[in-house]
């Protein structure tokens, strides 16, 4: 009886998850059809450059010697009327600062900015003699949020863009991501862009020169996952004004609003999702009518982990971040005062990202047990397994078909076939593995583990 009840509970959770994902795909499809992006970079410049407000690009870096020069070159080469780049080395113990010093001829300058947000001590501030728009801050290690707060204090412009130092932005990404601020400057406080997997792409001089797919199966499955879960889902939630997350790898924010909200929370590893939820909370509580939006066409290319231990650490950290945010803003979920963001967006986070993987894992375990005990026939077990795989595959293929960004760059039917094969493989083990890591992330959260976890990188130029 108990087991039957558990199986039924798991089935209901999985069913709700599927419904949510299908709804997301439908809304994203409607958004893509009704508002197609402008493919001509020249026209984007012509339309937006006059009205585009200045941006401070903040790139926190911790032991990024492999990528840092390439990434900073990419940032400095962005096509945007007025911007500065602030790299914050968060207590790097490798040659991050040395590499930048030799590549950009950095010189020490006095740090004369106000410390509105708290952060660890700054050791030194550098300016480049080659490019006056580049500032480098070398500070004591305090985590990503701490580094972002230091960058925010030093930023000079009304908007700031947070990017990961191990990522590469497309040359017109800033012009495209700023569009919502140009269209609705009174209400938009944050906008996020697409984050695509760079593994398999050819990168030269801080630019993605040709788009490809990685031969590494883990990276390939993450490509499908990014496509489905991180791009189309966010587009859908943005469409209904309930977007609860902007990726820490690429997001644009109004500096005054973030400063007034207290900057990034240093005690969490999910500083990106926590900030966005806090901005929503502040807006709703004060009746400010602020909006957080997602635009699919600005693209940030990022290196996905290619080894199991690195990917496991990343996913456990993401799970802890989501749990920390959900727990600290649980009031938004419980009371009905926070509208769509409270009930729908955080409800989705609870269902799809937190309970969903456990329910799925437990469901399979229980079905296997029932089959082993002879309660469930092998035919039923096989049929249910095939249905789950077909369902996951159908959702992923729909996402691949809808994908506006990567496919328009890849332009190859062969790539679509490879992605579809990866989507099938993803449902046959990868999803379950991620669920398993999420469970460990849950245990880490219970233990109040705050470690970030080492991320081993190959370097963007070697992908």
């Amino acid at each position: 009886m108990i087991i039957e009840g558990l199986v039924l509970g798991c089935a209901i959770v999985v069913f709700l998850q599927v419904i949510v994902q299908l709804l997301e795909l439908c809304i994203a499809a409607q958004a893509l059809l009704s508002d197609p992006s402008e493919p001509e970079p020249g026209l984007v410049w012509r339309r937006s450059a006059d009205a585009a407000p200045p941006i401070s690009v903040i790139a926190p870096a911790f032991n990024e010697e492999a990528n840092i020069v390439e990434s900073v070159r990419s940032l400095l080469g962005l096509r945007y009327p007025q911007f500065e780049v602030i790299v914050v080395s968060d207590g790097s113990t490798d040659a991050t600062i040395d590499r930048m010093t030799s590549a950009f001829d950095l010189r020490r300058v006095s740090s004369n900015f106000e410390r509105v947000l708290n952060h660890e001590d700054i050791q030194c501030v550098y300016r480049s003699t080659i490019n006056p728009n580049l500032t480098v801050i070398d500070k004591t290690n305090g985590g990503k949020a701490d580094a972002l707060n230091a960058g925010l204090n030093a930023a000079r412009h009304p908007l700031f863009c947070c990017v990961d130092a191990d990522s590469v932005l497309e040359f017109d990404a800033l012009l495209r991501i700023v569009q919502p601020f140009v269209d609705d400057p009174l209400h938009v406080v944050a906008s996020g862009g697409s984050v695509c997997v760079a593994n398999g792409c050819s990168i030269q001089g801080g630019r993605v020169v040709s788009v490809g797919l990685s031969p590494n199966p883990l990276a390939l499955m993450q490509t499908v996952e990014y496509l489905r879960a991180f791009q189309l889902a966010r587009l859908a939630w943005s469409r209904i004004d309930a977007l609860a997350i902007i990726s820490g790898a690429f997001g644009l924010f109004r500096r005054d609003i973030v400063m007034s909200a207290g900057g990034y929370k240093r005690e969490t590893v999910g500083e990106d999702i926590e900030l966005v939820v806090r901005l929503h909370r502040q807006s709703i509580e004060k009746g400010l009518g602020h909006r957080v939006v997602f635009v699919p066409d600005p693209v940030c290319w990022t290196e996905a982990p290619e080894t199991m231990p690195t990917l496991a650490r990343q996913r456990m950290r993401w799970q802890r971040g989501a749990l920390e945010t959900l727990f600290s803003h649980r009031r938004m979920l419980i009371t009905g005062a926070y509208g769509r963001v409270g009930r729908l967006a955080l409800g989705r986070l609870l269902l799809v990202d937190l309970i969903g993987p456990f329910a799925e894992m437990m469901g399979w375990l229980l079905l296997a047990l029932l089959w082993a005990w002879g309660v469930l026939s092998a035919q039923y077990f096989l049929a249910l397994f095939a249905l789950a795989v077909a369902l996951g595959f159908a959702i992923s293929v729909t996402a691949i078909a809808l994908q506006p960004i990567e496919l328009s760059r890849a332009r190859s039917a062969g790539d679509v076939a490879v992605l579809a094969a990866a989507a099938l493989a993803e449902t046959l083990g990868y999803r379950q593995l991620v669920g398993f890591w999420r469970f460990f992330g849950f245990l880490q959260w219970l233990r109040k583990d705050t470690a970030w976890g080492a991320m081993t990188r190959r370097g963007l130029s070697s992908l």
Partner: protein
Amino acid sequence: MTQLDAIWFSTIFLAAGSTLMLAATMLSRVLDGVQVRRRQRFRERLLGELMQPGETTRSLRRIVRKAASLGVLAPLVLQTRDILRGQSYERFIERLDAAGASNLLVSQLRGASTPVRQRAAEVLSVFQSNETRAALRRVWNDPSLKVRFAALLASMQMGDSPTFEYVLTLALKAKCFPHAARTLRLMAAERPAEAADWLRRASLAPALTITLLDGLAEAAALDAGDAALVASISRDHASPDVRAAALVVLGNHGARQCKAAVLDALDDDVWFVRVQAVVAAGRLRLGEASPALAHLAEDPSWWVRLRAGEALQRLNRAAA
């Protein structure tokens, strides 16, 4: 149908649907590739024909028509505007016009798709004729704001500006504001006397006043009366944002006769007004501001301190 059959039926249905969708996506990628190559071919052919001297032939007209239907024409004209200069550019546009490009783009202004209408409006400003002027004017009331403001900007580039009253009315609608503000800024930069008149006679919302002041800051010149008006705004306006924007205008235009307003603003209560006053004092080389600037080098706001240091350096260089 048993429960088991239903599960298998659903599975097969999903798998078949997914496979079909996958096949359709792959096919569309192949067709997209063909279309991209076709567009590229037409683009190259059109460019080649247009760059050759000679009479406009029927074949050129046909290629232009095809290029317009493939969506190649508007981007090509915009790209060439950035590359070609002088006589080559004029000849290029003349040949395009003679081949019927402007008529095709005017007809696209009546199209159903917003992106197509917007592009056509953006491109039409290169064809300086009464017909295109009239066509663009008709789109000033397009239901899509994007198209409407693209047409307004294109008209302005052709020297056919709308009235301030018309754009100010649009700017009062919250949704129009960003686009209208951009248009207003350009208009104020082109016609500073008219913009100053509006500042003088109407009590505009701070956002609109700032927009007009931003335009004045970009204007080629400002007469003494208008500079005095801006100086009085920098002193008396209740909004610190407006006072700061007015100081930018004074600093940009080297209006030394307004130095009293700049010197007064160095004592403003709001830090970002002081920042703009400091910058203006540096630009205007106001030697008499040196003691106040030295005092501001110890201002509580680091931005003021930074700018005061820069302004003092500028004054020292000017004195040397």
